[in-house]
């Protein structure tokens, strides 16, 4: 079969860091080629190179045998490369036809848009894709399912004669039925000769539609195989197969009494019947893909969202939590996943933010206990080694790691029995990460029960004393430290083994 795209020895360095290191990739006409790798493996860097967003540091790209340079986004378009992103970019107030021909609508001699031609052309595009009966050219995006909206985006790409279609996690926000719809559609495109680069964290899907797979790991090319040659377990081993570096503190914890029991958490739409327990001195890892329901569970527990049915017991006593204040009073605190949007008042200083959770304790009427306030702020600044000029340093000016430390400080100031950390190390440098790891283990040693959510598997494996895996709103597995392995956790978290029989 004809090779349409070939990438040879492509490297991309970011100020000395090799995001891609001499990778190889080739794509044939009429195939679905899945690109696999963990977060940070280099998949998105490669796509950005193809889309004209990044320039490769070295290497060559050939399209239909001819060497090309993709310097700008418009170059990629001219070469027939289109990227369909996870986030949709349809204009909600325009019809399907208008969206497909956005920015290049046919006009009449008078200068007005030629609506008739517009709709005819759009119809032809939809017809070619075989969805003209499902999607009306006059429909507005809001009346379409997410999968159908994605099809409109694809139609837009194909209306400019794209030969190469890059799909970046297209099913991440789709329901199961929509996913089936979309996958069928993608197969149809392949049969029409479109070459498709497919990226998904869902293994079942990859196996269902791919012709070939290519695996990257840590910016390196690992292998390209026909899908028939490999098993599910092979792929995961290829993706992971890496030594752990010694950045994790020794975890030597003794499990204490039961702190928290959550029973049958179910919100009627997404989360299904999730139950778990947390003991003193435990670091309970929650692993799953983004959107698997980890964060949602914690938001319900902490009283941010309402409307789910569940029972929650704190040290055996049943609790009712309807707002965050009640959770805090009960000894539960959540360090949210997005420190800038949910964690900090960025225009205020460290002191203001640190004590925001304990105003009740510090301010009585019009009297602020300034001495205690200062003592608490200083205690956590030194304990967490927050780097700042003073406690009056505005948090918006701190580095990501130090901002995260302020978020942790305001959580710890409440003297929690249960600390829920949602992606506490996301986007912070290695040094700060290590400090946060140490803090987590130290807190657990002091008897705090810790729920640790992370998308980084190595963290989960090395810090957790127990791991719960989530997939599409369901708990798919629960593993004790002794049974932990990357393969198992990944398998459960990608839905590779549904309905795992629970041991506890």
């Amino acid at each position, binding site marked *: 079969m004809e090779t349409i795209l070939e990438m040879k020895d492509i490297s991309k360095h970011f100020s000395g860091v090799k995001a891609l290191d001499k990778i190889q990739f080739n794509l044939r006409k009429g195939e679905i080629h899945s690109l696999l790798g963990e977060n940070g493996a280099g998949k998105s860097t490669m796509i950005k190179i193809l889309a004209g967003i990044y320039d490769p540091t070295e290497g060559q790209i050939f399209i239909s045998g001819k060497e090309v340079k993709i310097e700008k986004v418009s170059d990629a378009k001219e070469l027939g490369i289109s990227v369909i992103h996870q986030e949709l970019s349809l204009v909600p107030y325009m019809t399907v036809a208008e969206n497909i021909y956005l920015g290049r609508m046919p006009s009449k001699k008078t200068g007005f848009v030629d609506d008739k031609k517009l709709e005819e052309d759009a119809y032809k595009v939809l017809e070619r894709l075989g969805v003209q009966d499902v999607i009306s050219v006059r429909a507005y995006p809001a009346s379409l399912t997410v999968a159908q909206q994605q099809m409109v985006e694809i139609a837009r790409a194909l209306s400019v004669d794209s030969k190469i279609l890059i799909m970046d996690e297209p099913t991440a926000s789709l329901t199961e039925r929509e996913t089936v719809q979309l996958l069928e559609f993608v197969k149809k495109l392949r049969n029409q000769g479109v070459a498709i680069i497919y990226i998904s964290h869902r293994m079942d899907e990859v196996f269902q539609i791919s012709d070939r797979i290519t695996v990257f790991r840590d910016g390196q090319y690992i292998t390209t195989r026909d899908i028939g040659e490999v098993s599910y377990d092979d792929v995961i081993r290829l993706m992971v197969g890496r030594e752990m570096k010694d950045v994790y503190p020794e975890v030597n914890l003794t499990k204490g009494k039961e702190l928290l029991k959550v029973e049958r958490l179910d919100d009627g739409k997404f989360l299904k019947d999730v139950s778990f327990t947390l003991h003193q001195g435990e670091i309970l890892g929650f692993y799953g893909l983004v959107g698997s329901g980890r964060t949602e569970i914690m938001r319900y527990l902490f009283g941010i969202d309402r409307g789910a049915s569940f029972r929650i017991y704190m040290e055996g006593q049943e609790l009712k939590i309807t*707002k*965050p204040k009640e959770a805090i009073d009960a000894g539960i605190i959540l360090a*949210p996943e997005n420190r800038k949007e949910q964690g900090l*008042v960025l*225009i*205020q200083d460290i002191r203001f933010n640190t004590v925001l959770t304990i*105003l009740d304790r510090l*301010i009585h009427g*019009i009297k602020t206990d300034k001495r205690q306030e200062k003592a608490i702020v200083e205690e956590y600044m030194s304990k967490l080694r927050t780097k700042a000029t003073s406690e009056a340093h505005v948090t918006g000016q701190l580095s990501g790691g130090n901002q995260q430390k302020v978020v942790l400080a305001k959580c710890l100031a409440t003297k929690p029995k249960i600390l829920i950390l949602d992606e506490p190390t996301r986007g912070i440098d290695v040094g700060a990460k290590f400090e946060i790891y140490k803090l987590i283990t130290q807190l657990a040693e002091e008897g705090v029960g810790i729920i640790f959510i992370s998308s980084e598997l190595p963290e989960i494996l090395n810090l957790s004393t127990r791991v719960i895996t989530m997939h599409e709103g369901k708990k798919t597995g629960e593993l004790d430290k002794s049974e932990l392995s990357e393969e198992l956790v990944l398998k459960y978290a990608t839905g590779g083994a549904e309905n795992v029989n629970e041991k506890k």
Partner: protein
Amino acid sequence: MSTKKNKISREVPTNPIMKYLYLNKGILAGALGIFLVFGVLTEFKFWGRANLINILRLTSLDSIAAFGVTLVIITGGIDLSVGALMACASTYCALLIANGLHPAAALLIGVLIATVFGAVNGGIVANTKIPPFIVTLGIMNIGRGIAYTCSAGTPIRISGDFGEIGNGYLFDTIPYPIIYAAVILAITYVLLNKTKFGRSIYAIGGNAEAAKFSGINSRKVIWIVYTFAGFLYGIYGVISCSKLYSGQPTLGQGSELTAIAAAVVGGTSMTGGVGRIGATFIGALIMDLLTSGLNFMNVPFYWQYVCQGAVVLGAVFIDIQVKKK
């Protein structure tokens, strides 16, 4: 903003008066500049005692409304119902007195009506997704309509001792409204700077999500802020009623904009989270110095609008430039 704050924290004087002067040096300089310019242009007649007392009386009333608006803006909201609620308080107060109710009771009921409207504002803003601009625009029209209805569109005249409240003097020198404003300034200042409630206001305006995750009851705080603002507009309304010996359904037309201008000139950020009561007072003072000065110089009324608009734009522009550094 942030760099400035950071600097302040290191250099800020501890003495409260020095601190106030330091924090407000920009707008104080502006106010002083306007004061000097008008003095010179009017051959120092502008500085006459009677005129200065008059300006202070104006500023006192205006700042009472501006304090309410400042609190609302710090939460990240906006309040357009200022003038309408003043008019409601004023007309009802006059109507009740005209119907023979004891002035003290009428006064309280007048304030109460504006407070209830404020509570409605707050209730809707806190519990629905309707933007504050729309909510208070609606209440503005409802309030104004009610003021017109109860007064049949014309001022309700009253007579007697009631006028003392708005026109009297303490020790024959200080107009009562200045005393009222001073008391309200103190209360609002303490509320905003010394209480848990005040910190919550700053937190909600600075980042509503973060406030929620910190266990702050945003709905309650927002509700109280709009209610308190309504209460302040009510006080303005009844004082005006007394001052003018009549309940005016047209009272405070456009005063929401004057109040917002005072807050903004005083450095309150329209995006929320930033603002100080003491600075709003100077903002109101600047607006009134300007009005009074232009009147003094016989600048036609219509041109005064042009000047005021230019000053607001200029002040905010300079403020943004200074904070960028």
